[in-house]
């Protein structure tokens, strides 16, 4: 125990470790907010899909040698998010199929482009870092930290402001529309927020593990709690605690940050399933 604390306090003298913890907690907080909505709208895989789109966009940005690749990545991802989520139920290709198409397509094209126009000596390493986010969170610059803080606060503010509308649109879109709520605008809003969150979260866990960050806390909370408000609150708490724990563990036992966070999330899901079964849904 003594050794662990010493090791941690040693690491926390480095600013990049502190940045990682701050950014990690903020991103997991904002990503868990919309998890419930996405699970219920049958869009659990959108995290996967959009993060692959972001991967494709990063590949293009790398080839174009853009100094700040977010300029390209954010708009492309948001656009695809809108295409997937806000077009509603009347599309020719339904939700899951559209996500799968987009996901596989942009992953393939991104990797192909990187191979054709290779700008780096260590291509496999770069791809691996983008997909698994192995070290990205430990190499954040000051600007990126502030960007993350700003965006997370924006996401949280928007969610709080439109909490009731998001509830109404998720629970029953037809009723919301029929009684004069502009459901399409809120669907658009949800799509934009989730795209922004995914671009943010790519820095933390990499594109392959984003789904876990968005979905796991929501699923764990839904095992035990029975009202929308308590599920949201609980998934925020779970998400923040798991991420903080994951980052600390990763430092202590020198494991990849993203994979450690997700493992902690999955263990938590197991515990909550058990808890849900024991309480029998009395909470």
């Amino acid at each position, binding site marked *: 125990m003594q050794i662990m604390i010493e090791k941690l306090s040693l690491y926390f003298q480095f600013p990049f470790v502190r940045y990682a913890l701050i950014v990690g907690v903020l991103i997991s907080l904002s990503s868990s907010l919309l998890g419930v909505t996405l699970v*219920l709208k*049958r869009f659990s895989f959108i995290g996967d899909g959009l993060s692959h789109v972001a991967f494709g966009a990063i590949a293009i940005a790398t080839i174009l040698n853009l100094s700040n690749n977010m300029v390209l990545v954010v708009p492309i991802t948001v656009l695809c998010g809108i295409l997937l989520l806000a077009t509603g139920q009347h599309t020719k290709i339904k939700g899951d199929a559209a996500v799968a198409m987009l996901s596989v397509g942009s992953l393939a094209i991104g990797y192909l482009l990187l191979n054709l126009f290779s700008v780096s000596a260590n291509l496999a390493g770069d791809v691996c870092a983008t997909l698994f986010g192995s070290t990205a969170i430990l190499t954040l610059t000051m600007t990126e930290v502030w960007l993350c803080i700003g965006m997370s606060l924006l996401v949280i503010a928007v969610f709080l*402001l439109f909490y*009731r509308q998001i509830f109404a649109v998720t629970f029953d879109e037809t*009723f*919301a529309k*029929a009684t*004069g709520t502009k459901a399409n605008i809120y669907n658009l809003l949800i799509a934009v927020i989730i795209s922004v969150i995914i671009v943010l979260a790519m820095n933390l866990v990499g594109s392959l593990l984003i789904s876990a960050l968005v979905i796991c806390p929501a699923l764990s909370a839904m095992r035990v709690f029975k*009202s929308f408000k308590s599920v949201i609150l609980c998934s925020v708490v779970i998400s923040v605690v798991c991420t903080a724990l994951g980052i600390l563990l990763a430092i202590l036992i020198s494991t990849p940050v993203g994979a450690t966070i997700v493992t902690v999330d999955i263990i938590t899901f197991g515990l909550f399933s058990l808890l849900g079964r024991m309480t029998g*849904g009395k909470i």
Partner: protein
Amino acid sequence: MALLTCQDLALGYEGKKVVENLSFSVDSGDYLCVVGENGSGKSTLIKTLLKLMPPIKGQILTGDGLKQNEIGYLPQQTEVQKDFPASVKEVVLSGCLNRSGLGPFYSSGEKKLALANMEKLGITNLAKRCYRELSGGQQQRVLLARALCATHKLLLLDEPVAGLDPKATADMYQLIEKLNAADGITVIMISHDIGAAARYASHILHIGHQKPLFYGRKTDYTASELGRAFCLAKGDEA
């Protein structure tokens, strides 16, 4: 002036007409039941009345100060709702959204309205329960309470007894009748249960394939050849 007047409506999707020459009006306090076989355009009519889709031809006029967002709607249940974690209170409160401003909270007035409507439908004791764990009849009551939060004038009910057992069905019909008679709420109900329509409604609109077959008072309907034929056919089935 009538609460809702439809003049020479033609309804359908993407230019394909499902039903045409539809004219009827609903006065305050009426109980209109729209009957017809599957695919005759009942659901399309509901969607058009709610302005979820535009009519191909004709117009819908609202009177008596009825605003578009003052129509309470009881939709059929959706897939999503079957595992939605929401308490009964949250669902009922969400009906107040159209009368409410921005911000994350409902006002105390809106909360009182929600409580009053839950009291009216006898679901106050379920307030803290999870919506997805209720029985079909209880869920319908919750959605009806939500619809009442959105309106105190006009209710549009889409197959309100679909999937309910006979006891819950009878309870539901009695509840709707009470809302209509005691609270003076105008009701438009879609149903393929002609027997119930003939028992509870004040007016009946019978839609056949592509065209309306009957519109008028219930007493005229049951006396007409069409009404007798359909009620008899129903009686034989039962």
